[in-house]
């Protein structure tokens, strides 16, 4: 693996081939960290339910624990959507779906549904006609991003987008149909749970998932993309917000993910250090502010 120590920053070879060669050196491994996060957060969430229902801990404490654990629910699915959980091993591709779906239960979402829409987001980032995330990324305020992301399922513009993709791509339609069935089943489970444990479902499931989804809309979607146009080297920015990157799930370096989505989330700091000269040379948004060292830098 190439890193900032072994790669000469002052090399004059900033060709696309060299860039790809460096990027490839960070690809292909199984991102075991995400598998650990997926099962840990799901276990904590289940344990919190047990402790609250058994009256061992109060509901308000359960709410805060569930809120924190649920905020870790999306990234393992996201890693699965990009195949990071199976790495280069084709026979392990099922791990992406299984771990991704288990991780998403606290968020009450279908892994497959999110995956097909997320792939379209990558293929058409910031395109108002084709990017399903466009309507909560290109908004004027955090509040709008936090609110609009909840209406994705009922937004007519996104519905039209999904219908257009479904007409053109039968595989996309199949994934949407399968994902919708899983989504329907999870929502049905929420209804049943709410009937038997109403306040617990509100405070341990519904509210944490709504707050986390708003957080995702702001930090994962709007901040890296707002106001930017179309183009692989211009659709995502490097940004800071005064909060250590570990508390933002490292979304400040989301620019790396859009440049090479096959690089695992936990390898992005090393990759961005190695690819920084290429990013600056390509005038990628905010690239000039990327520090030389990121691995142990909190990026406040």
């Amino acid at each position, binding site marked *: 693996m190439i890193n900032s120590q072994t790669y000469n920053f002052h090399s004059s070879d900033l060709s696309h081939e060299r860039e790809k060669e460096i990027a490839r050196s960070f690809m292909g491994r199984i991102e075991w960290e995400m598998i650990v996060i997926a099962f840990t957060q799901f276990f904590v969430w289940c344990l919190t339910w047990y402790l609250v229902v058994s009256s061992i801990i109060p509901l308000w404490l359960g709410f805060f624990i569930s809120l924190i654990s649920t905020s870790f629910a999306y990234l393992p699915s996201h890693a699965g959507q990009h195949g990071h959980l199976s790495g280069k091993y084709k026979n392990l591709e099922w791990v992406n779906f299984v771990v991704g779906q288990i991780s998403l239960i606290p968020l009450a979402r279908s892994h497959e549904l999110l995956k097909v829409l997320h792939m379209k987001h990558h293929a058409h980032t910031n395109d108002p006609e084709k990017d399903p995330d466009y309507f909560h990324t290109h908004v004027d305020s955090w509040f709008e991003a936090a609110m609009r992301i909840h*209406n994705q399922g009922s937004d007519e513009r996104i519905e039209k987008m999904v219908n257009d993709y479904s007409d053109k791509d039968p595989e996309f339609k199949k994934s949407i149909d399968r994902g919708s069935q899983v989504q329907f089943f999870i929502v049905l489970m929420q209804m049943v749970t*709410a009937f038997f444990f*109403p306040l617990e479902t509100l405070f341990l499931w*519904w509210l944490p998932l709504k707050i986390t989804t708003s957080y995702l809309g702001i930090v994962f979607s709007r901040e890296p993309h707002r106001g930017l146009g179309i183009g692989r080297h211009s659709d995502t920015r490097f940004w800071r917000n005064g909060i250590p990157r570990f508390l933002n799930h490292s979304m400040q370096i989301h620019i790396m993910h859009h440049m090479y989505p096959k690089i695992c989330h936990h390898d992005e700091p090393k990759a961005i250090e190695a690819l920084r000269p290429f990013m600056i040379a390509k005038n990628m948004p905010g690239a000039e502010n990327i520090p030389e060292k990121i691995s142990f830098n909190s990026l406040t």
Partner: protein
Amino acid sequence: MDEKLLKLEQWFIVLFAFVFFGSIFNAGVIYLFEPKNEFFFTIMSYLVGFLFGLVAKNKKWGWIV
């Protein structure tokens, strides 16, 4: 067939609000006010949940699910 499915999908939000929010409203009322006539308040809570669902359907409030 597709149109029927679409209609079912649109009405599902009403069913969701009726069961999900009706149950939550009911539990909330009982927890907060400890009413003597629980049955009446249960009926009222589920009715409010149902009405909330109708409003959500008409206003396309997908966020409630």
